[in-house]
């Protein structure tokens, strides 16, 4: 069980959230026609054994999408911010 500190709702069990995958990939603008950019955004993953920036949505709570900094080796969470806040 992970406990994720939702910036809006406080610490909650991770099963209140919906996982959204790697948050370090950059989504091309909606009308970008560059195949390579979309291919990399959708498929290529760094998949680090270590610090990982990832999306979680607090679906049982405020429904906000969050960016969580978590170590994939020990699951320790370093930071959580709202996805709407500019990247640190």
């Amino acid at each position: 069980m992970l406990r994720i500190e939702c910036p809006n709702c406080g610490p909650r069990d991770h099963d209140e959230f919906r996982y959204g995958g790697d948050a370090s990939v950059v989504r091309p603008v909606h009308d970008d026609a560059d195949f390579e950019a979309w291919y990399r955004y959708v498929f290529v993953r760094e998949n680090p054994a270590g610090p990982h920036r990832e999306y979680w949505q607090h679906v049982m709570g405020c429904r906000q999408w969050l960016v969580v900094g978590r170590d994939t080796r020990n699951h320790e969470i370093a930071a959580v911010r709202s996805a709407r806040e500019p990247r640190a």
Partner: protein
Amino acid sequence: MADGSNIPGFEMAAYDCAIVQFEGWDGAMAQFEAELKRMLGGPLPNKVGDTARYDDGLVVRIAPRRFWLLCEGPPPIIDVDAELGCALPLGEGRIRLRVSGRGLRHVLERCVAVDWEALGDGRAVQTGLHRTPVLLLRRSGVECDLLVPRSFSKGLAEWIADASAACT
């Protein structure tokens, strides 16, 4: 934590529940909140989970840019400046389960992963109850409201009743 006593006096009742949702646009929140304050005629809760009471209801901040106005009676018609945000009546989709009794804590700890003792009276928590999103309003140490989706309400009421049966 253990009070060792059995748990009589658990009650649950279901009511309809009129809600109006207000949402402000990213970047226009200050104006939006000012506008909403004016229209509601009172202060707005600051943090998600905070509530503010009005003569005709309760305002809960359910997300950074979202408020719910919970009305006892029919909801007021409030038009929001479309440049600042929007309003959406949600009067039909939820049921208000009022649960109370000395055994409330025991029942809740079997239903939600919420630290009831650390939750102040009048506070609201959105959480999961048997895999379903609900809004829990603490009214007192022995009473709370659960706003649950209508389609789940029958199942969740059974689930809660079952929990109360288990700890008496």
